[in-house]
């Protein structure tokens, strides 16, 4: 119950729909159970008393109350639904806002698939419970109560006979539910696995074909397909076992009623119409009872869904602007690391250990080192995507924790290693950080990132819409768009995380030239594998397992024959001497 209480803020503002729906539910169920009464009246009061005038009264009366019922049914259903829909609207809004602000730490360990299933299935499950589930429970209570009242009025003996049969049904239903719900869950899981299987197969088709694993894939798919079929058949067999039995118990009740009731009618202690009424009334009790397990299960599922949603809403977002946030007009771009040590949550090794450096405004810092040596981590700490474990990161002499996050991040331009583009036009993708930018500015940024030419070549130019994940563009093209995106925010601090790895050499040379202009007046961090990208840096930090192994400018670093930098230099510039010799000869 705690879950529902804590989610109250989302649905309670719409309580008028819920109570309105309940009000009409009362009429719907009340009128439903009157139908047998009309049959009884027809037989006992019209036919047996030969009173035909009463029949017209009954027929018209019946139509009238059914109009009331129709009207009530409409509002009961519509308002009930509205209650859930509106509540879920609020819930989605809150979840979305929350997910947008959760820190990188959260996403390092979260699976998109899991989050999506919460945002879709759990939200939908919760809506369904609010819209229909809760009122189903109340409908059950109304139906059974009303039917029993009428039964006892007509014949207490038959009412008791009916009541005696119900435990058998309840028992069967409970047993059924215990078995069928895990089975349904198994189907859903199996379907999920199959979905993943196929999705991976299709998305990875290039890889599959490159390694000619089609037959292997067919074999692997056959397993999931088979599993799904088996799960479905298993579930169907549970239905086949229980459902006829439930129906049989209801039918058996009818048989007993006919035997016992027939006996009572023959001995004149009961009217025939009353017996007929029982044949309908019995299903008003047995029917809802069959659904009872379903309703209870829905309740527990909604509770579980609510818990999973609360988990997201309760997730601490430790990275927030402080109360009296520092929001300078302009950040100059001085970056200092004072003995920074950083460890990713849930990991045992240090990503950074005791890193100290200073970048004055406008300086260029080159970061080199093997994959996983901590280069990207340094840049992520500047924008405070993570909080440091020890030490301090300062921007313009002020700890990053003191800054208003939007102000801090607005002054940092990122070209990330993985160029995620949105399902949007190229123009909007470039203007992502600055949606109000004018088209001229967008084009200007694209030109500087060497992207203008190929964009112009696309059928819709800057209005070309990119699909999810920006498929259809080559790695190099995506990279250039994301460079343009970073340029357009006009940042004081520019971070280029392996920004040119996927463009060909000539384009890279052009971009590098553009970068050099761009870096002027901005503090720039360049993460690169190529010496040519970092050699002009004011300081190059060579990282090894989170520590700064070497530091200095290019000319100093190549002097150290044992150094990592020199080794990389030798690999990449084997030709240099030959080349220079040739050039001189030319």
């Amino acid at each position, binding site marked *: 119950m705690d879950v529902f209480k804590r989610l109250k803020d989302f649905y309670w503002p719409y309580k008028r729909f819920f109570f309105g729906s309940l009000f009409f539910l009362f009429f719907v169920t009340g009128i439903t159970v009157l139908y047998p009464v009309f049959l009884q009246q027809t037989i006992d009061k019209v036919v047996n008393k030969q009173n035909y005038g009463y029949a017209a009264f009954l027929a018209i009366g019946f139509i009238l109350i059914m109009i009331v019922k129709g009207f009530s049914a409409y509002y009961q259903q519509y308002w009930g639904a509205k209650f859930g829909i509106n509540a879920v609207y609020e819930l989605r809004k809150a979840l979305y806002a929350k997910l947008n602000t959760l820190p990188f730490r959260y996403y390092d360990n979260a699976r998109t698939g899991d989050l999506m299933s919460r945002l879709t299935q759990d939200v939908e499950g919760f809506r369904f419970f609010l819209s229909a589930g809760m009122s189903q429970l109340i409908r059950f209570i109304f139906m059974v109560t009303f039917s029993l009242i009428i039964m006892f009025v007509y014949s207490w003996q038959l009412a008791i006979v009916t009541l005696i049969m119900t435990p058998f049904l309840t028992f069967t239903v409970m047993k059924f539910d215990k078995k069928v719900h895990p089975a349904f869950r198994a189907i859903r899981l199996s379907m999920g696995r199959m*979905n993943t299987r196929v999705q991976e197969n299709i*998305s990875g088709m290039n890889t599959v074909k490159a390694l000619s694993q089609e037959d292997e894939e067919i074999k692997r798919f056959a397993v999931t397909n088979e599993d799904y079929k088996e799960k479905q058949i298993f579930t169907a067999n549970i239905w086949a076992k229980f459902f006829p039995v439930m129906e049989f118990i209801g039918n058996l009740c009818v048989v007993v009623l006919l035997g016992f009731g027939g006996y009572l009618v023959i001995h004149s202690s009961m009217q025939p119409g009353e017996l*007929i009424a029982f044949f309908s009334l019995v299903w008003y009790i047995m029917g809802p009872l069959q659904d009872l397990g379903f309703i209870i299960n829905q309740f527990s599922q909604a509770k579980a869904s609510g818990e999973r949603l609360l988990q997201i809403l309760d997730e601490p977002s430790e990275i927030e602007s402080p109360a009296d946030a520092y929001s300078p007009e302009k950040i100059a771009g001085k970056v200092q690391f004072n003995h920074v040590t950083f460890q990713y949550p849930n990991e045992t090794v240090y990503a950074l250990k005791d890193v100290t450096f200073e970048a004055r405004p406008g300086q260029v810092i080159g970061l080199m080192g093997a994959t996983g040596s901590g280069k990207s981590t340094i840049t992520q700490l500047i924008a405070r995507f993570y909080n440091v474990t020890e030490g301090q990161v300062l921007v313009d002499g002020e700890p990053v924790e003191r800054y208003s996050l939007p102000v801090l991040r607005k002054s940092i331009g990122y070209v*990330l290693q993985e160029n*995620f583009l949105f399902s949007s036009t190229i123009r909007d993708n470039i203007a992502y950080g600055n949606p109000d930018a004018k088209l001229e500015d967008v084009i200007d940024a694209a030109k500087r990132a060497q992207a203008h030419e190929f964009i112009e070549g696309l059928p819709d130019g800057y209005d070309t819409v990119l699909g999810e994940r920006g498929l259809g563009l080559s*790695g190099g093209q995506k990279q250039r768009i994301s460079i343009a995106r970073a340029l357009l925010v006009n940042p004081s601090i520019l971070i280029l995380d392996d920004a040119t790895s996927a463009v060909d050499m000539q384009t890279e040379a052009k971009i590098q030239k553009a970068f050099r202009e761009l870096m002027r007046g901005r503090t720039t961090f360049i993460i690169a594998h190529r010496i040519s990208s970092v050699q002009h840096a004011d300081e190059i930090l060579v990282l090894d397992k989170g520590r700064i192994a070497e530091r200095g400018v290019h000319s100093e670093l190549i002097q150290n024959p044992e150094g990592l930098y020199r080794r990389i230099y030798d690999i990449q510039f084997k030709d240099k001497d030959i080349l220079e010799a040739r050039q001189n000869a030319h």
Partner: protein
Amino acid sequence: MATKKPESKSLENRERFYYTQDRIAEKPFNWPQMLRLLGYLKPYSKTLLPAAVVALLVNTAVRLFVPILIGKVAFDRVIGQRDTHALYWLVAAIAAMYLINLISNYFRIKLTNKLGQYVIYDLRKVLFNHVQKLSHRFFDQRSAGSVLVRIINDVNSLQDLFTNGIVNTLMDLIQLIGILVIMFTLSWQLALAVLVVLPIMFFLSTKFRRKIRRAWQMVRVKLSKLNSHLNESLQGVRVTQSFNQEVNNEAFFDGVNIETRETQNQAQQKSATFSPFVEGANAVGSAILIWFGSYLILNSGNVTTGVFVSFAFYLGMFWDPISRLGQTYNQLLMAMASSERIFEFLDEKPIVKDSEAPVSMEHIKGTIDFEDVVFSYDDKRNALNHINLHMNAGDTIALVGHTGSGKSTIANLIARFYDVTGGSVKFDGIDVRDINLEELRANVSTVIQDTFIFSGTILENIRFGRPGATDEEVIAAAEAAGADDFIKQLSNGYETEVEERGNILSVGERQLLSFARALLANPKILILDEATSSIDTESELKIQEATDKLLEGRTSIIIAHRLSTIREADKIIVLENGNILEQGTHDELMVLGGKYYELVISQFEALNAS
């Protein structure tokens, strides 16, 4: 995929994001297609299908017969004549019939579901296997999502039709006709009067219900847009936070969220109008029964209290089959759309096919020749123009050139992902189109730029290169590729679970895995397509050292941007706009002083400028 914008909008009210929205598909009923679909029942036409039909016939017969016993027989014959003895017999008879019902019901549910699931299994298997065999061209033209939707959703939407739809339609028709026959036999006047509501009921269950269904389809369309955005914003959350776009995205999402809420409200409202009409139709039927029925009891000989009771039962049983038939009809129309999409895929022929008498790859050493090769992806622009080239078996050949110069196309033709438009590609003098395709693919491994990491353990991912490999072989390949170091640092080493697309791995690490995968495959011809673009130089050096040995005896084709990785090649081929500009060794080309020389210069430009 770069798609055209749905409609040109003024720049002021353009959408922040665009998502492909499904069109609401509804196809007219189409007999040939229906028959083709029913063809999937054929394997079971002598086993499951007749058994299921027998079960449902027994089931329906009991249902139809019992109301006569409880109504006419019970009230007119037994209770009316106060025959206690007959009452016991009657009760026993009905109980026996219900027992038969219990058993036949069990078999009906079991068998119809089994039948349906077998058919769906077959259909999905045929579809998936067919898709595997389709050529690259097929996948170039479609997004992964649209293929997924067919294999999962379209097949699922046929599931109901095959499990319940077809068999239950038969049951419902029999039940409906049975009720009509019985009602008319009992009293044609009363039957006629009560059935006034029949047309209304049919209308409600078909036309009216379709309107409601359309409204729900709109809801699905909106929900899928909402979910697309949610999915994208989760994947791009780091970019969003880097660029401070949380608030702007929230505004966009709120718009979609409101749209969803409103369409949902509308659909619910339409659905809610349904029940008053059904109640109304039922009420009219019941009122007529009460009014005219009692008139007939009082004024004619053949309607008795028992007949009246039976009628009340039948009237109660009437709506269900009509409602279900309407549902099945709607299901059928949807199935038309789904099956059309499924058959469209099944009718797609693989363009790259095995020849009639394929030659084995066994004796092929790996000499590759391109003879006057022309190739075009779209029949408009040639990606390769009359290319002639020769690669010796065991040599390492580097392809150099701009994006779009034709490097990857040459690799694709060697792996026979596409067939040439003109000319021929030959291995040891044999046209690749004559070589057994499966063997060819097994002997040509490509390490592609955008490599795909499947969800599973690291070990499983590397093993993807050769499913029969032992753990030791997998680890040996990882060591050779230089991937062993980072794998050992992962929380569970080789048993670490990676997500689809390899979330926890960096781009460079993924490339190392893919490299290990190709080495494990142990191919005669190895293609490295930008395989090392994001691997740091140190690791690349490691790979190079390890693979120098592995490349021995194999023909290898290397496409790379970094000159340092290709300078050792036996032959360097420089391409531009689908033409070979120059070829030779590094030293030869440097002496030549042509395009290659320029490219090398451009890499050192920065250095020389200093």
